[in-house]
């Protein structure tokens, strides 16, 4: 019970409006969880609470047996966009993370290591460049490289591919899975998205948040075997059934909201 991420009765309000209500969620170490929900379901807020960027009015958040009281290097974050400092070169953006994670390393080592991470995400071409010289997809690759460089066992990803075109989005999904599957021990990943296909392709488990206030309305295992083949998976009946039932859950929540409003 102590390993992994545990949320207990988490309530969060902002300006008198309730964003999250009584969130209970346990993520065992090494699991890839996707958080799915309409906009306004508080899924990004939930991620910010786990990151320690904001604090709940009620409830407990625990990572690896320790309560979350602020940001920590054991919890890496990849935001949707602007994850990099534009005034630092791509290499230095990653080197600064390495410097914080492993202060004993020397400057030259950090830069060498950050180039290794860039190669790992297929960004040899970005060595020596600045963020403004990169496309959106390349910037997100660099952001992933930085999160990996931190060496955090827990990776929080807030719609990291949300602003990308479909081709780049698919490529980065594959890259993320490849990296995650290759590592031992596996990182725990909480991945926020509003794209059902993305949630199912990536996750071991899909947690669906309902809107206003955000709360868990469904928690489904995704039991497709790993080393998933995108095309075969998207064509399978099992995938379609799961996809349909999730779409129905989301539609029902939207309808409930409309009736309430």
């Amino acid at each position: 019970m102590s390993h992994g991420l545990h949320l207990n009765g988490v309530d969060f309000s902002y300006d008198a409006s309730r964003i999250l209500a009584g969130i209970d969620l346990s993520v065992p170490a090494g699991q890839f969880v996707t958080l799915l929900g309409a906009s306004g379901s508080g899924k990004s807020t939930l991620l910010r609470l786990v990151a320690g960027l904001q604090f709940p009015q009620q409830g407990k958040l625990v990572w690896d047996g320790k309560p979350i009281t602020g940001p920590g290097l054991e919890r890496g974050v990849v935001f949707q966009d602007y994850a990099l400092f534009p005034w630092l070169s791509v290499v230095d953006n990653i080197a600064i993370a390495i410097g914080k994670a492993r202060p004993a390393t020397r400057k030259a080592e950090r830069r060498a290591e950050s180039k290794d991470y860039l190669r790992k995400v297929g960004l040899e071409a970005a060595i020596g460049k600045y963020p403004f010289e990169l496309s959106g997809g390349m910037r997100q690759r660099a952001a992933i490289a930085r999160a990996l460089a931190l060496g955090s066992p827990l990776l929080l990803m807030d719609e990291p591919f949300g602003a990308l075109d479909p081709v780049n989005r698919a490529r980065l999904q594959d890259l993320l899975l490849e990296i995650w599957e290759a590592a031992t021990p596996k990182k725990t990943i909480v991945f926020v998205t509003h794209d059902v296909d993305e949630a199912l392709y990536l996750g071991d488990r899909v947690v669906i948040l309902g809107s206003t206030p955000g709360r868990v309305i469904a928690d489904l295992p995704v039991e497709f075997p790993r080393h998933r083949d995108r095309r075969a998976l998207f064509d399978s009946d099992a995938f379609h059934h799961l996809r349909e039932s999730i779409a129905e859950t989301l539609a029902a929540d939207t309808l409930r909201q409309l009736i309430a409003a």
Partner: protein
Amino acid sequence: MSETLALDHPEAQVAPARSGHTGATWSARLGNLFEASLIWLVLLGGWFLAAEFTPLGDNPLVPSPQLTLRSLWESLPELWVGTLSSFSILLPGFALASVLGIVSGLGIGTSPRLQRVFFPFARVAAPVPPTVYIPYAIAILPTFKLSAIFVVFIGAFWPIFQNAAAGAHALEQRYRDNASILGLTGFEYHWRVVFPAALPHIFSGMAVGLGFSFILLTVAELFGANAGLGRFVQYYADFADYPKMVAGILYTGLVTFLAMTGLEALKRRALFWQR
């Protein structure tokens, strides 16, 4: 800031329409050059005609362009000494104002508590015209030079401080989040995140501060300097040597323009990462 940019690069607004064909580049450039120098040519022509062909030319207050140019040429050694003297006041004052203004602005701009302490004071102290300090500074400080440096410092400090504080205060949430995630705090946070993010603001403040520095410098020199740009103009006005006086005005304008251009070039270099 956008207004200054538009003033600096009026051609930027018409460039897309003209830069399409390489064949048109030369004539487009000539056209731009003509447009940029039009007001100068009109003023110079008007001045020449007025001095040569109207009764104004008989007035010693209106020296002809040729006479002024000759005075400028003859005064160059003296103006050069004056420039060095002026810059030995301007540079220390402006540099000190920049360093202290940026450091305190960034520190205070990121701390709500320090803002509560300093802003009520700054709101009253900043708008005081720095020229009113000149007689007192001269009385209190041991040398004229020190008092002039002090006055230049005061004049340049407030706009730099205010802009640095505003830039730090306006730091975007995404940069703050990123800094928190990476565990950047204290000096490291200010040096690697707040300072670069606030640079556009800081440069605006420095441009205003540099303008004030020149105003205060030349005003201070009227009080007690024995050399300098403002002193040169005042000195020859006292002797009714108007060709030299006008030459001094033109020269001071050129020096100010060059200093502003230098700062602008520095800004473009430092902010290369902005799209």
